[in-house]
């Protein structure tokens, strides 16, 4: 810590000398402490995307139904019937590494605010999670804490968690990934953008009092390499209050319904300085803020702390002065603190005062100061303590960081696990133990231990929840339903980032197709290592390219995303981990779509081509520790045909069960369906060019398993043929054993026990 003290202020705030020079150049003078603090946060990686912006423009973002694309609080799409859907995904990785419960809880709170700031009612959450190995006590502590935090906040605030992912891999040992996806629904005409239009309008701060929590959290935590127990960089932990947030949701939606607000903006990273300047910048207006008007939780808070605090559960509403009384009355009814902290100007500048508003009679009044503080003296003439061009805070530096393919990449890709495993498991080898081993690996094992801790049913929309390929929510008073899935396999991206990026999109879209939906939007959360490492920037650019190619091929617009850099375990950057969240629309839901299940007596039909692709598979990498090679091929045209075929088979209800092949391969997909349907299988898995082991455990893309009533089998295979998709009847559902001729023979009860007990037994001692 000592040497940090001697550092100049801008460096202690995480700014480079060049960035300071740019500020001085912008202002034509040395910045004040407050100004420097605001720039340091607003120009941080987390707020400014300075390292990633150059690449993100690659994503396709257009479609006729897109109402709001990237750049706003959330992306919004039109789903007809006068309704729109808002979605967003965000990471809260570093806070969760420091304090798992509060880190995850405040992550949930933050993303929910993004959704209702658009005028949408948040109705669903999903939580893609990544942890180290569960053998490690610290990891169990983080896993337990993160899940309790999501449960504790999400359940209480009243937004159901309808799906997610949990992946365990050593690459996340010191740096768990906590991503949260949120979906909201709104009458299209209620859509609002956070703009501070109209000089003379007032900015009302709603919600919690401002404390010292998370000062510099965004810039310091998410924008600098962070090691476990790094006290110097650890900001005070933010504590979430779901009860405050629940009241904020209701109050803000009422405000917008009653047309009492021009716009509402959440306070997130960089707190009030970011929210107030952004709303003004978007409208090309200016904003004056008076710190004396901000209700403070602790005595002795200075202007810097007040403007950059990341205290949770706060919103900024832009209102016309005539509506102030009505707004305050509404806030009182919901027991929400509301103070006028700003006024919109036509100066195009962001100015901060202390005590001006009472003096010059801006409507409203200073809140009670916390015990221990004096009331702020009136002053109408003292100059602002910050005065900067409003848009300059928003347009931070743009970096074109060096990009370099890792020298180790060729060797990594050359280490194909195929030959070794072919020797070890020749045709005829008994794979029963291998299947059981896969079913017990925590990444594949049953996640009920997690999902039962989440309310996944509130609002009576959840037609398919945890356990389904995609969560399906009915849209009340319409024939429609929404399908959503989040996916992203880092090991594939580590081996070949462009293919890995494609595969992340394909898996999420495939899961959505299995519910009979057509994909209408994608949001992504890009979790990467240190962007100052050229290898990381190469991985980043390749993943973005791969995801973009897949989105173009499938016709899915990207309507939002989030980038989290500086994720590392000790000195090692994490594997590149993009998470793709795909939203699908079902026009005519009808009855419940088929689940990932089998029905006794049905034929089992495999759609798509199984290939001997073991690179990056759970079997090769986790069970046998062979984590090199190339990921499965990601043929985009093939994917599109398979998705369309599966979606239409599901819509016609020509199948009684459907499940895609992902982690663990075809054998695990079959086992999952059998366990769900509580029925055995009798199959033969012969695929050209594959040993039985490869047919069982390769994670080939664009393969889907169906349970089909024998009377429909011919028709289903006919449709597949017509679409040019290989279809093979591999066997039937029945009995109480999982039998694949010449491959495995396992009692259903043993498989179920292995799969169901894996995580609970690892956690029972936690």
């Amino acid at each position, binding site marked *: 810590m000592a040497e940090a003290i001697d550092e100049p202020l801008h460096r202690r705030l995480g700014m480079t000398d060049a960035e300071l020079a740019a500020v001085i150049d912008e202002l034509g003078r040395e910045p004040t402490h407050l100004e420097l603090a605001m720039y340091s946060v607003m120009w941080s990686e987390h707020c400014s995307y300075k390292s990633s912006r150059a690449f993100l423009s690659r994503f396709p973002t257009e479609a006729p139904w897109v109402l709001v694309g990237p750049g706003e609080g959330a992306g919004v799409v039109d789903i007809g019937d006068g309704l729109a859907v808002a979605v967003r995904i965000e990471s809260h990785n570093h806070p969760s590494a420091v304090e798992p419960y*509060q880190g995850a809880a405040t992550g949930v709170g933050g993303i929910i605010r993004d959704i209702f700031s658009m005028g949408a009612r948040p109705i669903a959450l999903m939580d893609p999670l990544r942890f180290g190995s569960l053998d490690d006590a610290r990891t169990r502590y983080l896993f337990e804490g993160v899940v309790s935090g999501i449960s504790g906040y999400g359940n209480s605030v009243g937004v159901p968690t309808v799906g997610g992912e949990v992946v365990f891999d050593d690459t996340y040992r010191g740096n768990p990934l906590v991503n949260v996806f949120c979906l909201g629904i709104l009458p299209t005409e209620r859509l609002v953008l956070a703009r501070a239009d109209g000089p003379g309008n007032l900015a009302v701060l709603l919600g919690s009092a401002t404390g010292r*929590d998370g000062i510099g959290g965004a810039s310091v935590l998410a924008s600098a390499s962070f090691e476990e127990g790094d006290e110097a960089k650890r900001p*005070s*932990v933010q*504590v979430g*209050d779901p009860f405050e947030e629940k009241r904020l949701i209701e109050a803000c939606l009422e405000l917008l319904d009653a047309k009492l607000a021009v716009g509402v903006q959440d306070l997130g990273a960089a707190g009030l300085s970011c929210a107030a300047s952004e709303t003004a910048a978007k409208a090309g207006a200016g904003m004056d803020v008076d710190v004396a008007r901000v209700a403070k939780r602790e005595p002795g808070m200075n202007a810097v702390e007040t403007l950059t605090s990341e205290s949770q559960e706060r919103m900024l509403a832009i209102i016309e002065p005539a509506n102030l009384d009505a707004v305050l009355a509404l806030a009182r009814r919901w027991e929400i603190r509301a103070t006028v902290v700003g006024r919109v100007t036509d100066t195009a500048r962001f100015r901060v005062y202390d005590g001006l508003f009472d003096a010059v009679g801006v409507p409203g009044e200073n809140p009670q100061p916390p*015990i221990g503080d004096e009331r702020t003296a009136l002053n109408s003439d003292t100059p602002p303590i910050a005065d900067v061009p409003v848009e300059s805070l928003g347009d931070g530096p743009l970096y074109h960081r060096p990009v370099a393919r890792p020298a180790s990449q060729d060797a990594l890709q050359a280490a194909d696990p195929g030959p070794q495993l072919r020797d070890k498991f020749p045709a005829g080898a008994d794979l029963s133990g291998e299947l059981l081993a896969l079913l017990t690996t925590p990444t594949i094992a049953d996640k009920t231990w997690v999902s039962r801790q989440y309310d996944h049913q509130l609002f009576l929309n959840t037609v398919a929840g945890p356990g389904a390929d995609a969560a399906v929510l009915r849209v009340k008073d319409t024939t429609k339903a929404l399908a959503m899935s989040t996916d992203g396999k880092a090991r594939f991206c580590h081996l070949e980032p462009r293919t890995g990026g494609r595969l992340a999109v394909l898996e999420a879209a495939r899961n959505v197709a299995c519910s009979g939906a057509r994909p209408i939007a994608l949001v992504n959360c890009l979790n990467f290592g240190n962007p100052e490492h050229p290898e990381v920037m190469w991985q980043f650019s390749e993943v973005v390219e791969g995801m973009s190619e897949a989105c173009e091929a499938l016709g899915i617009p990207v309507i939002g995303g989030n980038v989290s850099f500086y994720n590392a375990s000790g000195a090692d950057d994490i594997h590149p981990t993009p998470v793709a969240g795909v939203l699908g629309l079902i026009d005519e839901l009808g009855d419940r779509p088929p689940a990932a299940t089998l029905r006794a007596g049905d034929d089992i039909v495999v759609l798509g081509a199984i290939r001997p692709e073991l690179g990056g598979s759970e079997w090769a990498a986790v069970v046998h520790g062979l984590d090199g090679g190339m990921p499965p091929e990601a043929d985009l045209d093939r994917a599109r045909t398979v998705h369309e075929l599966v979606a239409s088979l599901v819509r016609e209800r020509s199948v009684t069960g459907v499940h895609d092949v992902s982690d663990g391969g075809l054998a695990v997909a079959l086992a999952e369906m059998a366990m769900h349907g509580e029925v055995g299988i009798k199959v033969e898995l012969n695929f050209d060019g594959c040993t039985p082991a490869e047919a069982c455990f390769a994670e080939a893309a664009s393969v889907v398993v169906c349970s089909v009533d024998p009377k429909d089998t011919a028709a289903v295979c006919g449709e597949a043929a017509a679409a040019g998709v290989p279809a093979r009847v591999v066997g039937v559902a029945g009995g109480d054993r999982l039998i694949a001729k010449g491959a495995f023979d396992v009692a259903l009860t043993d498989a179920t026990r292995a799969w169901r007990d894996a995580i609970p037994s690892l956690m029972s001692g936690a």
Partner: protein
Amino acid sequence: MPVFNAHVEVTHLPGIADPAGATVERALPALGYTNVAQVHIGKTINLVVDAPDADSARAQVNEMCERLLANPVIEAYEIVIS
């Protein structure tokens, strides 16, 4: 080995928000208590521990607090051994 009673009181670190305390404080005036402030809600753990002497009992309970009973990142704790 002698047994000791340990009484642990866990409170929020200064500056850490206490939503429960704040909510109770907001509720009290409606019940007619307008003269109450600074409500903070914490946790107590009472337990019995075998140890050679009071000091090692305290040392052990202190370790339990660090590892399980309290969350040092956001909580402070006080131990009384008797």
